């Protein structure tokens, strides 16, 4: 039990930014991204404490967290909002300097809004492949889809992001 807690703490510290960025790209705003990240880790924790030690050892943390986060976001979209637990108020983000950071942050927030506006299947594929930089195989694994499907969804998603709407094959 003690071992699980230490392992969970390492997992949170190692993957917190990755999961937050995933949430940001999928939801399009920082508040929802923080909720997604919070809920993802809470679900992971609840699962971990029920797992036997060998299952925990064999866990591919990155892929596992991605799958949980995707489910968290999908459930929100379906209207099954996770119960928001107020984690005692968020502190302002001082990770980036006030000047240089603000511009990049605004740019990234705008991009996140565009990505989040994609239809879900393209959004998920693009985010896993190009925001999270998973391989096609890893993304296919996380999505539970064939590699070919992921490739074509990434392709179409990028087209839509570039404003290239001529090819209407999918819609």
């Amino acid at each position, binding site marked *: 039990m003690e071992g699980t807690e230490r392992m969970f703490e390492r997992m*949170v510290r190692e993957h917190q*930014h990755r999961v*937050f960025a995933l949430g940001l790209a999928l939801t399009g705003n920082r508040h929802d991204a923080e909720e997604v990240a919070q809920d993802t880790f809470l679900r992971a924790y609840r699962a971990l404490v029920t797992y036997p030690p060998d299952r925990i050892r064999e866990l591919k943390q990155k892929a596992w967290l991605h799958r949980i986060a995707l489910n968290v976001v999908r459930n929100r979209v379906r209207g099954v909002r996770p119960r928001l637990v107020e*984690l*005692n108020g968020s502190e302002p983000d001082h990770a980036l300097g006030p000047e240089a950071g603000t511009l990049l942050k605004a740019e990234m927030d705008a991009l996140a809004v565009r990505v989040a506006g994609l239809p879900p299947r393209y959004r998920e594929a*693009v985010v896993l492949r190009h*925001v999270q*930089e998973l391989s096609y195989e890893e993304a296919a694994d996380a999505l539970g889809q064939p590699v070919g499907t992921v490739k074509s969804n990434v392709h179409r998603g990028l087209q839509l*992001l*570039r404003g290239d709407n001529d090819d209407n094959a999918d819609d």
Partner: protein
Amino acid sequence: MTTLMTDLKRLGEMKAPAGFADRLLAHVGMADSYAPFDTVLGTVYVAWNRQGVSGAARSASAAEFEEWFRKDVGRQLVAADAPPDLAAKIEDELEGRRRLRFDLRGLTPFEQAVLRKTREIPRGEARPYGWVAREIGHPAAVRAVGTALANNPIPYFIPCHRVVRTDGQIGNYGGGGPEAKRAILSMEGVRVAHLQELARAGFRYQGVKTTKIFCFPTCHTGRHALEKNVVWLRDEASARAAGFRPCKVCRPAAVA
């Protein structure tokens, strides 16, 4: 094309808000949160987690409190906004209405038993160390009770200040020394000087002639006895010999 790819990659490098991991760990109970509270005792720093209140101290600063908690309780600590009802609960608790839950994990079963028993002592009253020892089934472990109380991680709320020596000395107090102990007892309505006077004279119990019951001097059941009906008693044997039986509320002796 390349710009879009680069931008997407940079989006993936966005960082979670500062303190995210600590707040999350606090939420699953792996770290505790704390905040300062203004109370009748002045500023009290209180730590809590999902199990309940886990620590309290009148530290001079947040840094001092954090250092004490990490060393004494041995968990991580995160400054936080208090849950909305905590301040009211703390106020109630210090006024004698029990509303808090406590997290005593990390203490030995003996220490937990001592602290739980101590919590039963009503506001405005005091009990000897030996009483706690006897009540938890370890009548000989009086010193160990003293040690457990000295290491009480949640003073004021688990009222270790209500446990006193029978010889009239006020006894040590981890929550700020003997002076603080005396001050808090007085604030709660205990006539400390009177209690010490009795103890020094060798009187440990108050007997009431009309009821033939003997109590600890601070027991609330004996408080309204008329002065002419009160007798002061030195020990259980002489009390029983004089025809008194122990009070069932404050239990000054094992009720046979």
